[in-house]
């Protein structure tokens, strides 16, 4: 079976500056992968290479055996942050409708079939009951479920979710993760879930892609998130502390590399 994602010897640069180098990873169809790492580790840069908006400097990315741009329709993508429509009354549903076959030519007419598709995705993320309200009045959690619904249009085989938990409170984080888990059960899609803190995802993810120091390691949580493995990746001493099923990654100087996530709302990996 073709892997969902095959990354071989991948090097990515932005403005001549190398962000990632020599990354290898093979992700099988149907896996739930948590992608973690500190700010600036290149998580969003990697996402851009996967969705095909950033060509590799070296190496290659294959999505379902194809070049990333070719496989665009197989990928459901949820970008980081969301566009501001605070001055308009455009409803959440109108935004999802605009995204439904938005890459076609012609006028933005929503056919009956597209309307049903929009209904379906809003239903899956439990967003239909508020989708008629203006996007601008929705809470962060409600907005994220609309953005997730949008990513489900066209029944993609792979979902790429870039920091969907940023700026959500724990209750809404749990709701969103539950939605994603439900989508995975229903569609058997491969999930690539970028997050800052791995703890909320402990129950649902199959493997971890941990990124730091320009590199990345992929594997089971217990193999990857260990003091030895992360110290090698970061290039300096890292301590992994486990407290009752929760994991904390701490650097030797006492800087907490992970759990700042709680007050981490306007997140932009500076890449």
């Amino acid at each position, binding site marked *: 079976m073709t892997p969902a994602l095959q990354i071989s010897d991948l090097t990515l640069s932005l403005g001549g500056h190398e962000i990632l180098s020599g990354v290898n990873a093979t992700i099988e169809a149907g896996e739930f992968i948590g992608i973690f790492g500190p700010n600036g580790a290149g998580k969003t840069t990697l996402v851009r290479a996967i*969705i*095909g*908006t950033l060509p590799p400097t070296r190496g290659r990315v294959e999505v379902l055996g194809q070049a990333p*741009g070719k496989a*665009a*329709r197989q*990928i459901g*993508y949820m*970008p980081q942050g969301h*566009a501001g*429509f605070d*001055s*308009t*009354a*455009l*409803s959440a*549903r*109108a*935004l999802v*409708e*605009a*995204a439904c*076959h*938005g*890459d*076609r*030519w*012609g*006028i*933005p*007419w929503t056919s009956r079939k597209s309307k049903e598709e929009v209904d379906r995705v809003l239903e899956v993320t439990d967003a239909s009951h*508020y989708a*008629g*309200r*203006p996007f601008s*009045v*929705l*809470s962060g959690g*409600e907005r994220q479920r609309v953005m997730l619904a*949008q990513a489900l249009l066209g029944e993609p085989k792979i979902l790429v979710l870039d920091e969907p938990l940023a700026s959500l409170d724990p209750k809404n984080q749990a709701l969103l993760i539950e939605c994603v888990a439900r989508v995975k059960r229903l569609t058997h899609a491969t999930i690539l879930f970028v997050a800052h803190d791995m703890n909320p995802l402990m129950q649902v993810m199959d493997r971890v892609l941990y990124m730091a120091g320009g590199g990345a390691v992929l594997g089971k949580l217990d193999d990857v998130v260990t003091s030895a493995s992360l110290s090698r990746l970061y290039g300096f001493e890292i301590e992994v502390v486990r407290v009752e099923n929760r994991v904390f990654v701490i650097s030797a100087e006492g800087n907490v590399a992970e759990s700042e996530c709680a007050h981490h709302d306007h997140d932009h990996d500076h890449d």
Partner: protein
Amino acid sequence: MTMITTMTNTLTNYLGYEFVQNALMAGTLSAILGAIVGYFVIIRNAGFAAHALSHIGFAGAAGAAILGLSSLEGMLLLTVGSGLFMGAAGDKVHRNDLAIGMVLSMSLGLGTLFLSLYSSFAGQAKAILFGNIFGVSGGQIGEMVILSLLSLAALAIFSRRLLFASTQPRLAEARGLSLPGLSMAFMAVLAVSVTLASQIVGILLVFTLVIAPAGIALRLCRSFWRGISISVALGVAAVWIGILLDCITGYPATFWITALFFILYILVEVYVRFFTRSDH
């Protein structure tokens, strides 16, 4: 009672004049195009670009007098050129305020130069700045019909992609849409509609036809098609009422159109803030 009869008679008389008919025709065309293009201007947050393009048109109109072109042709040449440049310079135009500001100030500088070189243009300058709704000729109407149809046809081809790229640029890019390409195409259409609108209300008041109807519609309407329809209806209604009030009162149509929109805007803001559900 007699007053109403007199007013009706005056109106009926005026509607018989060709210059009034031309004004209504030209006003309707630019209102429709402005209302539709304006919808995308608001969604894309490109108000500054729209504003700049209209002022850039001034230099075009002034330069046209020197080159022997009509002011409409001169404006089109310069606004479409600058629009394409602005579109190419940044996929998100509002991030590019500096570039727009520089092009804008250079054009106004050029406009000043042309004005001083060609002083007989001064009288025409006032019409270009403040509009000359009753000065539209039959020939100009012909040009305006063609330009409006071309712009609407262009929108009919790419508006679906434009709406997607304007609401969700990152998603659209991931789906393989070219953001700079769409931006350039849109700016060219915007340049045309700004130029047409300025024939009616003047360069200084283009916002009235390009921003006001769409802005008000977007404060009220939650879906795309309803928003576009309300925007067009508001634009056309305001232009007609403005022109007819001008006939009756003798105060300029441009004043009436702007006043109508301002009152409507205040009413809508009050309605949205105090009478729509804020519970969520």
